[in-house]
């Protein structure tokens, strides 16, 4: 199944060179969790990252569905 990774802020670089604008579609096996996908791309999983699935805050062991969008960015005060 297909999911989309959207890396924001300085995490854009984690998807280079393929995901030029911080966005990358990837194929994953069914049953894959959020944490497993992010690990492949070296995204820090601990408290220094904010990780969203379809805009919602979910646990890392959340099992992905087709067409899910995972967004991640470094935790940092802003705005």
């Amino acid at each position, binding site marked *: 199944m297909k999911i989309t990774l959207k890396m924001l802020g300085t995490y854009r670089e984690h998807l280079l060179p393929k995901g030029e604008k911080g966005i990358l579609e990837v194929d994953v096996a069914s049953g894959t969790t959020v944490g497993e996908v992010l690990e492949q791309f070296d995204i820090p999983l601990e408290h220094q990252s*904010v990780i969203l699935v379809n805009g919602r805050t979910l646990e890392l062991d959340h099992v992905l569905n087709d067409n899910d969008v995972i967004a991640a960015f470094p935790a940092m005060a*802003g705005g």
Partner: protein
Amino acid sequence: MNGWHGKILKVDLERSTITTETLDPKMAKDFIGGRGWAIKYLYENMDPTADALSPENMLIFATGPLTSTPAPTGNRYMVVTKSPLTGAVSNSNSGGEFPTWMKRTGFDLFIFTGKAPRPVYLWVNEEEIEIRDAEHLWGKDVHTSTDILLEETEPKAKVACIGPAGENLALMAAIMNDKHRAAARSGVGAVMGSKNLKGVVVQGKKKPSLFDKEGMRAFSREITKEVASDVKAGSSLHEYGTAYVPQVTNELGILPTRNFQSGQFEGVDGIDGPTLKEKYLIRPKACYRCPIACGRLTKVDDAKYKGEGEGPEYETLSAIGSACGIDNLAAVTKANYVCNEMGLDTITAGMTVATAMEMYEEGLIPEEDIGYPLSFGDPDALIESLKIMAHREGFGHILAEGSYRMAAKYGHPEFSISAKKLEFPGYDPRGAKGMGLLYATSNIGASHMAGDLAYAEVFGVPKKIDPLTIKNKAKLIKHWEDAFAIIDAAGLCVFLSVRYMFNPEIMIAPDNLTQIMNFTTGADYSMESLLEAGERIYNLERMFLVRAGFNKTDDTLPPRMLEEPMPTGPAQGEVVELEDMLSEFYKLRGWDENGIPTPEKLNALGLSEA
């Protein structure tokens, strides 16, 4: 005294006299400084029901004990006065360089009273304090005025001044310092204009003495090192400024779009940080002694929107960009420059235009009143609107009153997305519930700076919490409002403070901040006494509001937030369940059911005379 100079400069503009006053050390400690001292003075020396634009209002520039010390980001000051936009208290924060130099004149606070018979500016350095004629500057923009003021005084001095917006009493006028930084919110620039005070120029070398110089240096160095290594490892704030945020809030479905009709903007890629960096960034810029450097020095070459200056920051991208349906970054950046030159708060200015756009499209404000079509997404109509707002020309007279008065004039105040008449910043609270409670209860109206729980709800600092639940939010907001009062009173920047000065495990306890305060002042604060001081400041501000006539009915949000579910995105179907949070909040604060601090609470905080 250490950290504090313990000296206040009082300028009576009516009589053109200058006096100084020394501070009682107990009061200094109990109210910390900056925002704390200022509200104490305001509360004791002016009638809260006075007209904000009358000579009776006081205008206070207030630095904190950490301003101009080695504390990282110890570069802030607060402008405290009664707001002409909200009728409540104003406390607008700004950094840059002016506040540090202001403190080095040897005074912690400047207090202005009365109204000068003719336009004047104040020039303060270590040898002289002088009220000078400013007739020749009246009508000039912020950049030109700043250049002339520096020429007339001393090239290395620092300037805070108003532009045409402040002179014309536009209710969203800012006080600009170092040309591009703003004490922006709730019309402090209009108060300055009403006093015929065009500018304040400062120069000095009197750094405050430190109680434990070595301890302070070492501790500050440690924190600076930690920040610097985080920046090196890749900090979005340094890399993109706050301009990286539209993508984040859009992802959460809370990016203000077309006057908060929805929370996701299809043009978000046009107004985000990477685009800004690629197309217009010259280099990042830091306030004095800041290792983060979130400021953006930018330049637009595009013929139509040509200009150079600072910004835009997230709040501007949201209020002037997505809230107005505009995805043209060159135009948004230009509009930001216009606001800086005119001396306008980009949030209220942008949001007032956004409200006008929605009401125009709904047929509630006729085109003949405006003089041109004012649809969402039209950058040229936006820029024109900002200019006439600052000059109060034609329809600009109505725009200059802010979104609430404008919408009410046309019979539909509900189109104004404001609380206590102050326009919302860039987080739709239907998808960040804590922010909803904050906007409704904040003493200055809908400001994120009053206790920015978006750090936790949106940005994961100090840790990510669920933005959609109301559970625990009353407790957090109470605590964050008190904590932010400490940061403002101490003279630090919130960006750095929340992450590096507070203990994340206790969400949030000012552990490092307590140490830094003690190294600086020697006043022997504990975390608890510091938090209590924050609560004291917050409650005294609340009492100012109570005396000005505010009560529970003012602690509310526009109907759109309470009744219109978010139409799309991750927060789809959500409204702000304000009532539930509010009653819990009042209880936690020790206020009665009408939102008024009880005598017991005031006693406990040492405010029995309030």
